C-alpha cells in the first residue's frame, strides 16, 4: 500500500496481519496470489469507504467480518494443494493449519465413543468447576471487587465502629491533618407516614461531610452537605429504587416533601443506582444533628475519613496514635486506654473477618477440585490403556510423538472446557445457594453476581485442569512403540512406571483429603465450642420486640412510663407469657451507647474522655426475666424512682475494673452525660456477652428505666425493646405481639421482633456457613479419594490376576492373598495420611485467626481424622482384596 506503515489505522493493520497469517499457511505460489488479491480488495474497499464510512462502526464491522472469512479461501487453497481429487488420511499429514480443527473433531468423536467415561469425567469436572466458580464469584463480589467510590483506597474507617462521640469527631477534624475530611454516620432509619400505618425505612444518619468523604455524585439534585446537619435541616437523600417504589417513576424527585414521624422532609437529591452507603439495605440518607453546642457525648457514632492527597495510611495512623498518646498522658488514663482505636481502609473494615473465611473456602474448594482432577486423570489413564493398540499403530505409521501428545491433550482440554462451561452454568445455581446460606448481614452480599469474571475464571481454571489431566496419560502414551505395546499386552498392559504413577496420584489424593478433613474438623469443633459459650442470660423462651412510637406524643416522662406500663400489662396478658420487662438494647443484636465512667472518689478525668461502659437502662425485672445471675447486692425495685437517689448495677467486668479492690456495692461512680449526680452501686450482676459470644463481655452499667426516662425523652429516643419470657416456642407469639402493639398504638412501628435463640443463631451464622461448606468439601474429597483408591486397587488386582492365581494354585490361602492386597492398599492410605498430616499442620497457621479456643493442630481432631480415613480406606481396599482372594485360578490361567 502507499500509506507508510505508521500512518495506517489500526483496523487496517489488523486486517492485513490476519491476511498475512493466513497466507503463511498456504503453500507455494498460491500464497502470494492469495495475499495480493485480498489486499487489493481490502485497499479498494477502504478507499471507497471514505472518512465518513470509516468512522461508522457498522461498516468497519462488516469489513472485519469479510476479511475474517478469508480463512475459508485459505483453507480451500490449502486442501486443494494436498489432495488430488480425494481426501487422504489426515492422520499422516504434518500440516499445521488443519491440525487443530482435526484434533478437535477426533476428540469429540473419541469422547462420543466412550459415553460412560465421558459422562463420569464430565460430571466430576463440572461439579468441581461449578463449586469453584461459585465460591470465586462470592469472593470476588465481597472481598476483591473495589468499592464503587472514587479512589476507594484513600477512604479509611475508624475502628471500633459505633463507639465515637460527636465531640471526638470535632476533635479529630480539628487535629488530624492527614485527612481532608472526616464524617460520622450511624445506622438508623425513619418512619415514613402513610395511610395504613407507619413504614420504617432504613438508612444511615450522617454528618455533613459524609458524601465528601465517599466522593460520590448525585444522580439527581444534590447530596447532603455541611449545613444540612444543623438544627432545622430537613434535607433527605433517597435511593432511586426507593423513589421508584414509592411513586412508580423516577422523575420529579427533587423538591418533593415526604411526611415522616418527626416532621416533613424535603428530598434534595437521589443516589446513583445501586450505590452503597455503608448501611446494608439503606434506602435513604438523613442528616445527623451536629450542633456546636450539643452536649451529648454519647459514644455511638462510626467515623470515616478521606486522606489528604499525598498522605499515606501509615502516617495517618501514626498521627492518630500520637494524638491518643497525648490524651492518655494528660489525663492519666490506664496504659491500655485508646489502644483499640485504629484506622483501616474502609473496604477491609466493611468486609472484616468474612474475608479470611471466604478465602479459606476458596482454598478448600480448589483443593477439592484438584482431587477431582486426579480422579479424572485416573479415568483417562485407564482409558488410554485401552487405546494402546490405536496409539501404537499410529506411532508405527509415522505420527510423531509430539502429534500424539497434542491429540491427547486436546481431548483432555476439550473435556475440561466442556466441564468448565457446564460448571459456569452450575455456578448460577451455586451462587444463589451460597447467598442463601450466608448470613443476611454479610457485607456487600448484594454485590455478588455471576458475570464475565466468573466465566473467565471457569474457563481459565478448566484450561489448567485440562492441561493437568491430559499431561500424565499423554506423556505415558506417547513413548510407546510397537514392540513394548505387544510385550505389555501379554502382561495385561501396565508398565511399572504407570503403576507408580497411579499409586503416586492416589497418595496425593489421600493427602489432600486428610488435610481438608482436618481443617473441617477444626472448624466444626470451633463452631461447637462457640455455640456453647454461655451468654450470661437464658435465651431459650425469650422473645423480644423493639417498639418505636412517635416521640411527638410524649411531653412528660409520666406519659412515657404509662405508655410502656400499659403495653407491658397487655403483653403479660397474652397466653403463654410468664413475665414481661424492658431493655434499652437487645443483647448481641445491638451494642447500645457507651459513656465514660469514673469513680466518684477519684478526680474527674480531663477532656471528658474516660474509660467507656455501655449504658443499659432496663426494667426492674430484667435480671429476673432474662435469667441473669446476681452476684452481689440487690436488683432494681419499685423504690428506685425518678426522684430517689440515682442507682446503678454494674456487671462483673465493670465492677472489677473500676473497683479492683472489691466491695463495689455501696460505692459511687459518675457516668458522663447520663447523670450529673453520682450513681450508687447497689448490685453486681454476672457478665452478659452483649457484643457477641466470641468476644469478651464489655463493661456495663445498668440503670433503672424510671431514672433514665428524662434523658431518653430529652434526646427523643422513645423506642424500647420489650422482652417476654414465654412458655413454649416464642415464635408462635410473634403475630400476637404485633397485634397487641398495634392495638395499643397504631402508629408505633415494630422495628425488630425475634426470639433470643434466633438472635444468637444469626450471630453465629457466618461461622456455621463456613464449617458446613468446609465439611461438604471434605466429605466430597474423602469420597473422591476412596473412589480413586478403589480404582487403583481394582486395576492392580486385575493385572496381577495371573500371578495371584499361580500363588493360589501353589497353595496360598485366599486369606493370605486378601491380606496382601489389603496391606498394599492400606499402605498407600497410610503414606497419603502422613503427607496429609504434614500439610494440615503447615496450613494450621492460617486457621488460627478463625477458630475459637482451639489449636488447629489439636491431636484429638487429627486422631479422629486418621480413624475416619482408615475406615474408608479399609472399605475401598477391602472389596478388591476380597475379590482377589476369590479369584478362580483355572479361569485366570486359561484366559492367558
Amino acid at each position, binding site marked *: *500500500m*502507499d500509506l507508510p506503515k505508521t500512518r495506517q489505522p489500526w483496523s487496517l493493520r489488523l486486517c492485513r496481519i490476519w491476511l498475512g497469517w493466513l497466507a503463511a499457511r498456504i503453500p507455494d505460489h498460491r500464497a502470494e*496470489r492469495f495475499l*495480493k*488479491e485480498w*489486499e*487489493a*480488495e481490502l*485497499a*479498494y*474497499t477502504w*478507499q*471507497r*469507504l471514505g472518512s465518513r*464510512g470509516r468512522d461508522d462502526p457498522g*461498516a468497519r464491522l*462488516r*469489513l472485519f*467480518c*469479510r476479511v*475474517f*472469512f*478469508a*480463512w*475459508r*479461501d485459505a*483453507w*480451500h*487453497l490449502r486442501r*486443494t494443494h494436498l489432495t488430488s*481429487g480425494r481426501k487422504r488420511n489426515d492422520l499422516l499429514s504434518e500440516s499445521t493449519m488443519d491440525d487443530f480443527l482435526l484434533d478437535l473433531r477426533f476428540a469429540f468423536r473419541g469422547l462420543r465413543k466412550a459415553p460412560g467415561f465421558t459422562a463420569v469425567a464430565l460430571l466430576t469436572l463440572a461439579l468441581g468447576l461449578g463449586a469453584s466458580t461459585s465460591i470465586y464469584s462470592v469472593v470476588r463480589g465481597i472481598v476483591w471487587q473495589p468499592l464503587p467510590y472514587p479512589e476507594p483506597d484513600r477512604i479509611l474507617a475508624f475502628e471500633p465502629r459505633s463507639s465515637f462521640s460527636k465531640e471526638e469527631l470535632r476533635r479529630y477534624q480539628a487535629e488530624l491533618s492527614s485527612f481532608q475530611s472526616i464524617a460520622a454516620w450511624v445506622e438508623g432509619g425513619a418512619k415514613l407516614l402513610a395511610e395504613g400505618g407507619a413504614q420504617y425505612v432504613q438508612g444511615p444518619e450522617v454528618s455533613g461531610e459524609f458524601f465528601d468523604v465517599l466522593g460520590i455524585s448525585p444522580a439527581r439534585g444534590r447530596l447532603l452537605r455541611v449545613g444540612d446537619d444543623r438544627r432545622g435541616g430537613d434535607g433527605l437523600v433517597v435511593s432511586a429504587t426507593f423513589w421508584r417504589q414509592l411513586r412508580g417513576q423516577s422523575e420529579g424527585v427533587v423538591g418533593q416533601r415526604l411526611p415522616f414521624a418527626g416532621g416533613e422532609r424535603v428530598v434534595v437529591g437521589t443516589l446513583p443506582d445501586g450505590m452503597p452507603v455503608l448501611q446494608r439495605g439503606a434506602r435513604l440518607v438523613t442528616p445527623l444533628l451536629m450542633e456546636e453546642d450539643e452536649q451529648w457525648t454519647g459514644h455511638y457514632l462510626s467515623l470515616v475519613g478521606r486522606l489528604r492527597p499525598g498522605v499515606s495510611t501509615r502516617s495517618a495512623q501514626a498521627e492518630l496514635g500520637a494524638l491518643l498518646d497525648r490524651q492518655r498522658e494528660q489525663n492519666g488514663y490506664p496504659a491500655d486506654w485508646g489502644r483499640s482505636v485504629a484506622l483501616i481502609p474502609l473496604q477491609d473494615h466493611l468486609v472484616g473477618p468474612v474475608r479470611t473465611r471466604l478465602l479459606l473456602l476458596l482454598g478448600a474448594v480448589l483443593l477439592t477440585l484438584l482431587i477431582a482432577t486426579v480422579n479424572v486423570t485416573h479415568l483417562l489413564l485407564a482409558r488410554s490403556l485401552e487405546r494402546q493398540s490405536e496409539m501404537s499403530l499410529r506411532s508405527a505409521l509415522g505420527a510423531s510423538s509430539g502429534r500424539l501428545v497434542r491429540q491427547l491433550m486436546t481431548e483432555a482440554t476439550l473435556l475440561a472446557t466442556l466441564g468448565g462451561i457446564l460448571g459456569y452454568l452450575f455456578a448460577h445455581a451455586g451462587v444463589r445457594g451460597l447467598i442463601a446460606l450466608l448470613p443476611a448481614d454479610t457485607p456487600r452480599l448484594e454485590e455478588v453476581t455471576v458475570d464475565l469474571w466468573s466465566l473467565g475464571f471457569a474457563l481459565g481454571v478448566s484450561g489448567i485442569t485440562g492441561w493437568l489431566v491430559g499431561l500424565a496419560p499423554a506423556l505415558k502414551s506417547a513413548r510407546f512403540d510397537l514392540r513394548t505395546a505387544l510385550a505389555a499386552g501379554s502382561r495385561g498392559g501396565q508398565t511399572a512406571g504407570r503403576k507408580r504413577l497411579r499409586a503416586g496420584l492416589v497418595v496425593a489424593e489421600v493427602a489432600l483429603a486428610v488435610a481438608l478433613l482436618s481443617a473441617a474438623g477444626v472448624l466444626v469443633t470451633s463452631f461447637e465450642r462457640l455455640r456453647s459459650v454461655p451468654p450470661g442470660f437464658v435465651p431459650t423462651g425469650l422473645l423480644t420486640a423493639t417498639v418505636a412510637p412517635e416521640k411527638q406524643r410524649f411531653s412528660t416522662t409520666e406519659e412515657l412510663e404509662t405508655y410502656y406500663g400499659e403495653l407491658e400489662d397487655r403483653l403479660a396478658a397474652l397466653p403463654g407469657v410468664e413475665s414481661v420487662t424492658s431493655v434499652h438494647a437487645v443483647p448481641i443484636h445491638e451494642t447500645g451507647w457507651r459513656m465514660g465512667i469514673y469513680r466518684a472518689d477519684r478526680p474527674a478525668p480531663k477532656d471528658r474522655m474516660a474509660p467507656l461502659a455501655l449504658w443499659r437502662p432496663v426494667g426492674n425485672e430484667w435480671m429476673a426475666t432474662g435469667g441473669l445471675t446476681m452476684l452481689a447486692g440487690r436488683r432494681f425495685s419499685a423504690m428506685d424512682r425518678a426522684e430517689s437517689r440515682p442507682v446503678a448495677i454494674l456487671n462483673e467486668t465493670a465492677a472489677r475494673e473500676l473497683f479492683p479492690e472489691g466491695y463495689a456495692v455501696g460505692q459511687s461512680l459518675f457516668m458522663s452525660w447520663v447523670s450529673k449526680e453520682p450513681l450508687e452501686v447497689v448490685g453486681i450482676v454476672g457478665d452478659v456477652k452483649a457484643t457477641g459470644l466470641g468476644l469478651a463481655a464489655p463493661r456495663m452499667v445498668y440503670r433503672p428505666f424510671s431514672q433514665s426516662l428524662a434523658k431518653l425523652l430529652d434526646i427523643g429516643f422513645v423506642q424500647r425493646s420489650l422482652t417476654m419470657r414465654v412458655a413454649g416456642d416464642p415464635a408462635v407469639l410473634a403475630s400476637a405481639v404485633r397485634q397487641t402493639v398495634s392495638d395499643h398504638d397504631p402508629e408505633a412501628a415494630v422495628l425488630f421482633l425475634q426470639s433470643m435463640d434466633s438472635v444468637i443463631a444469626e450471630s453465629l451464622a457466618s461461622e456455621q456457613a463456613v464449617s458446613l461448606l468446609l465439611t461438604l468439601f471434605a466429605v466430597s474429597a474423602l469420597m473422591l479419594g476412596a473412589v480413586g483408591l478403589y480404582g487403583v486397587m481394582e486395576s492392580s488386582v486385575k493385572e496381577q490376576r495371573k500371578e495371584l492365581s499361580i500363588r493360589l494354585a501353589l497353595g496360598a490361602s485366599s486369606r493370605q492373598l486378601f491380606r496382601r492386597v489389603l496391606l498394599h492398599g492400606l499402605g498407600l492410605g497410610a503414606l497419603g495420611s502422613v503427607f496429609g498430616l504434614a500439610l494440615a499442620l503447615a496450613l494450621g497457621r492460617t486457621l488460627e485467626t478463625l477458630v475459637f479456643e482451639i489449636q488447629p493442630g489439636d491431636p484429638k481432631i487429627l486422631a479422629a481424622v486418621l480413624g475416619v480415613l482408615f475406615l474408608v480406606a479399609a472399605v475401598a481396599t477391602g472389596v478388591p482384596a476380597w475379590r482377589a482372594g476369590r479369584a478362580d485360578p483355572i479361569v485366570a490361567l486359561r484366559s492367558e
Partner: protein
Amino acid sequence: MTRRLNITYATGIVLLAVEHGYPFGFDIMDATGLPDGTVYPALRRLEEAGMMVSDWEPFEEARREKRPPRRYYRLTAAGHQMLAAAKAKFRGLEMVLGHPSPGQA
C-alpha cells in the same frame, strides 16, 4: 486442471454475477448477498474447473487511484454453458441479483 463440478446454487449465482458485470471478488459478495465465506471458494472451484479465468486489472488504472491492482474474473465458453444450465436448473436465478448501495464496502 479440469474437474467435474456440480451446479450448485452458489456457483450459479457467482457465474451470474460475473456475467452481469461484477468481475471483482468483493463486488460479487455485495451483489449476490451470499455468505462472505462462500464466494471465494466458489470462485476457486470455478476457475479450477475451467469455467472462469482471471487476471490482474490494468496497472495504470490502479496506479492512478493509488492502490494495488485487483483480480478480475471472466467467464469462459464452458462457463457460459454452465451458467445456462444453472439458469435452467434454478428458475428465478436472474432475479436474485441485488444492487449494492454506494456506501457499502
